[in-house]
């Protein structure tokens, strides 16, 4: 071959350079900054684990961690289960089924900012959402302005936006499940639910797992929805870890402290990734 090593590095150069500058160096830098006091105007000064001591005694941090986990617990199971059910529903030979699929998928393409705005109006006390609920005699609910429902509202929007995306992922998997298995189940007299419980669920296990992991990652990183819909409120009820990083770094200019929170966030995501790889590894062995 005429390929020489320098050719390879020439083609790789832009990618490696940008990854170094915007991904690899920053992750080490943020860990370092977590051990400093830094306000941008004077150079960072080393303070050891002071930020972490402060962090563990900071009720705002614990509240943000709690909110992040709460959001995750609301979003991930709902998305994992509902989009599978939806995929089963649209995996039928029905007229106009493609149009339905496209309608479900479209919200995923919409900017999170626009999504947040649309739903802010939907969730207004005199908004559309409360109107639907009033038809069945519930409400009016202060979706975004009450501490107890603000996070659920954000979670509903997340599910709305992601449902079609995960549905398509499941759909690709469903279409590769052998038809004979379903026919055999039908021969044995299995009804709709039994058929899917015994055939679909086992066949889809890896994809179900994959969807839950991806939506978990998304849940730990979501920030725009909270910023636009509630600005972290009311009374910090929707302030998550990422939101806290953003606030501390760019509003309070506490770069050191914010970096410590960011490091915790990174470690959380890393731990989840490793647990995921472990489970997937044992899954494949079994």
């Amino acid at each position, binding site marked *: 071959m005429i390929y020489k090593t320098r050719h390879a590095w020439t083609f790789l150069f832009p990618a490696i350079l940008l990854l170094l500058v915007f991904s690899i160096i920053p992750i080490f830098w943020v860990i370092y900054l977590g051990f400093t006091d830094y306000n941008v105007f004077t150079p960072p000064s080393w303070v050891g684990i002071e930020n972490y001591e402060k962090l563990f005694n900071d009720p705002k941090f614990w509240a943000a961690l709690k909110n992040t986990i709460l959001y995750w617990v609301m979003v991930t199971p709902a998305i994992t289960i509902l989009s599978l059910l939806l995929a089963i529903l649209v995996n039928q030979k029905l007229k106009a089924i493609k149009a339905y699929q496209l309608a*479900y998928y479209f919200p995923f393409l919409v900017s999170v900012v626009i999504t947040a705005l649309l739903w802010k109006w939907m969730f207004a006390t005199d908004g559309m959402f409360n109107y639907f609920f009033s038809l069945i005699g519930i409400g009016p609910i202060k979706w975004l302005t009450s501490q107890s429902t603000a996070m659920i509202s954000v979670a509903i929007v997340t599910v709305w936006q992601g449902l079609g995306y995960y549905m398509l992922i499941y759909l690709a998997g469903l279409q590769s499940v052998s038809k004979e298995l379903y026919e055999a189940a039908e021969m044995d007299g299995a009804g709709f639910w039994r058929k899917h419980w015994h055939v679909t669920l086992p066949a889809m296990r890896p994809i179900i797992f994959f969807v839950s992991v991806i939506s978990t990652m998304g849940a730990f990183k979501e920030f725009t929805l909270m910023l636009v819909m509630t600005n972290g409120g009311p009374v910090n009820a929707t302030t998550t870890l990422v939101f806290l990083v*953003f606030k501390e770094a760019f509003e309070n200019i506490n770069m050191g402290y914010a970096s410590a929170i960011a490091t915790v966030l990174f470690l959380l995501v890393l731990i989840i990734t490793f647990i995921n790889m472990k489970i997937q590894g044992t899954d494949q062995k079994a």
Partner: protein
Amino acid sequence: MKNTSIKKRKRKKFNYRLRGKIVSYIVLTLIAVFTIVPFIWTLSTALKSANESIFSIPPKIIPVHMTLDNFINVWTQLPIPLYLWNSVIITFWGMLLTMAIATMAGYPLARMRFKGRDFVFLIIIATMMIPVEATMIPIYLILNKMNLLGTFTGVILPTAVNAFGIFLMRQAFLGIPREMEESAIIDGANIFQIWWKILLPQVKPMLATLGILSFIGAWNSFLWPLIILKEQSKYPLTLGLYRLEGAFEASTREVAAGSIIALIPILIVFLLLQRHFVNANISSSIKG
């Protein structure tokens, strides 16, 4: 006797099927209402005139006095056309850079043998685990040092390398038969010609997929504009609408009209390229 019982069973089965279909359509339609209503309602808000209240009980989907005033105001009195133009610039360069860098990097990773290749590939894949939300502080500081705060370059560069895009392009390049390069080499083609003229045409479908993914990403980008851009004249639509909504400069009707304007390009591209979107969705899910 036997014949009629079979007929009965068949009819029963037919009824069961029909009922299943009807139930399916009802559920499908209800969910479609759930996904579509926010758009319809925003459109209806954008079409309502200033003296018609947005929130009424029961809500009015079809405005009493339908008007295009909000769209005209948004276009003539608010800087929406400027925001739109900024979004176009950011999207164009963002897409171009992402696609160029990924197709360049994917080529040697798939077609060449050299020391350190597997290591480099591993590092590129590993960076997918670094969430930008965790690194936004150092990236901000780096952009500050490079004097890129407040510039489009600063918005575009941090997300220009898409590790997943490199992975996709590498997979696409792997699938090309060796003979294609070999005959080109015999013809005396140099390395850039092989890449550009021989290999790139072979990976067009994957490049289209990557193009769509980066189009959505760039058109909807918000985090970096939010952190970096301070001058209003540089805002893309996403950031502009967010600021307008918070600033009382614009009424809800006008922000709604602006949102509809922001949705139109995505909707058009989506309707034209439906099939590719589905492919992009599926290949973006292989990354696990």
